[in-house]
């Protein structure tokens, strides 16, 4: 432990954030303003998520931090260290063992349980932002439930690309009321938003917190004749062989060679430990940071 207050933030700040979180849980999908603090990291690196995590952490928690599905990238490592140092909590890479998971741009493949909290880092909380630049107007649109504009965006997608080309930050309607930006998760993850875990969204720069309570109804917006499709790369993981997980495409040489690997590194490792092998698992090149494939 260090000279920091537990989890870096002072108690009054945590109290303020907790109140915002409670309000957000009471009105699912509604963006609650909060007095976001300066954090010892740049905006865009998860200042919102970190504040929400700090407000939720208790000494008994076991923390997992994901960055684009991986536990070992810069963002994940630095935030995990941050809480190791300032809160002294245990950390883990295993989804199943974690009680609090802070994530950037992914939802773990393994279904979450009622004992877990998932905290998202959100760059732009306003789903209508790029359609309507005025904040006064977007707030009015939310309060009056005027969401026709979201469909204009989807219409434009189909008109231009023949299908709904929005592949991440895909807008959802929560409990039939608020349209919400699920943060830049791939739309493959959208069905997982209906979860047993508490899901909290923190946007530090934009000073907003919103939330999904457990088993909240979350519908991805679409057209009747162009229904929502949670798409992924049409391959199986080259390391663990899973054909149901979300995949990253990795270029492995300069001759057009490529491999597909699970974006969720913990899920992939777990499967390999259980004996599942993919196309390149035994002999082929291993993905960065995953030395001993199988």
């Amino acid at each position, binding site marked *: 432990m260090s000279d920091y207050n537990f989890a870096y933030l002072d108690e009054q700040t945590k109290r303020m954030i907790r109140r915002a979180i409670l309000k957000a849980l009471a009105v699912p999908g509604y963006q609650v303003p909060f007095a976001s603090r300066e954090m010892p990291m740049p905006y865009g690196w998860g200042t919102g998520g970190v504040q929400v995590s700090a407000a939720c952490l208790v000494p008994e928690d076991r923390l997992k931090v994901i960055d684009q599905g991986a536990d070992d990238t810069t963002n994940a490592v630095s935030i995990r260290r941050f809480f190791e140092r300032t809160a002294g909590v245990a950390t883990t890479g295993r989804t199943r063992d974690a009680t609090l998971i802070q994530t950037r741009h992914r939802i773990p493949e393994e279904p979450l349980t009622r004992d877990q909290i998932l905290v998202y880092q959100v760059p732009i909380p306003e789903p209508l932002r790029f359609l309507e630049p005025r904040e006064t107007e977007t707030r009015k649109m939310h309060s009056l439930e005027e969401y026709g*504009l979201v*469909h204009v965006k989807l219409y434009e997608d189909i008109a231009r690309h023949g299908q709904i080309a929005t592949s991440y930050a895909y807008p959802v309607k929560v409990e039939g009321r608020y349209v919400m930006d699920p943060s830049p998760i791939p739309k493959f993850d959208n069905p997982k938003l209906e979860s047993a875990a508490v899901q909290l969204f923190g946007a530090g720069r934009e000073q907003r917190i919103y939330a999904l309570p457990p088993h909240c109804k979350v519908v991805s917006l679409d057209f*009747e004749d162009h229904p929502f499709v949670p798409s992924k790369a049409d391959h199986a993981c080259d390391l663990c062989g899973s054909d149901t997980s979300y995949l990253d495409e990795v270029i492995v040489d300069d001759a057009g060679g490529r491999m597909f690997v699970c974006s969720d590194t913990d899920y992939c490792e777990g499967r390999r430990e259980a004996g599942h092998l993919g196309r390149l698992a035994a002999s082929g090149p291993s993905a960065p940071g995953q030395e001993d494939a199988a």
Partner: protein
Amino acid sequence: MTPLLQVKGLTQRYGARIGCADVSFDLYPGEVMGIVGESGSGKSTLLNCLAGHLEADAGEVIFDTRVDGPRDVRAMSEPERRMLARTDWAFVHQNPRDGLRMGVSAGGNVGERLMAVGARHYGDIRGQALDWLDRVEIAADRIDDRPTAFSGGMQQRLQIARNLVTGPRLVFMDEPTGGLDVSVQARLLDLLRGLVREMGLSAVIVTHDLAVVRLLAHRLMVMKSGHVVEAGLTDQVLDDPQHGYTQLLVSSVLQA
């Protein structure tokens, strides 16, 4: 017959200055009312008050709604008013850039009002958009182009299509032909006249162009310094102006 729109004593002040004062008129279904006057005479203020863009200081604007009959628009709640504004009402801006979404394709622009009232079938929306582009004489292959790629006249026609797609009963137009050259103006007027007749629209048209009101409007109000100085049938007012200002206005038109 109940008037579609009844305006009683509508007043809007900007501090000590008058925007428009004590304006009253009735508009019947299928009727087109023209409002003329010089710049700063309060015609746009009046139109914005009618359309609910400005909160008027006093007066009543009673609209004959489909469901509940005549109701004072100013006493409606904001959701009701906005609902009205995207179903039964339409507003055509002078500058099409104010009324269009410039970053969205022509089809998306026309479809927006449909989607705002709950249309969720892409094929239907696109079909209606195509139909409307055809009615305002925009080629079907321009449907996926953005309005930025359109000429001024096309933008204005697109704005009209976008506004009329939900079948409104009352259209407010603020200088719909302003900034267009005369031949384009003539086509647009032709189009408007056809649409008004075909759809049985009522309209309030603000303009400073007397030729436009002569063509489109059944009745005419002349405004000066925020007050209505003369009102009557269009031909009557233009051919036999009674008020000094109207006489000046009519005699100021250059003969080509």
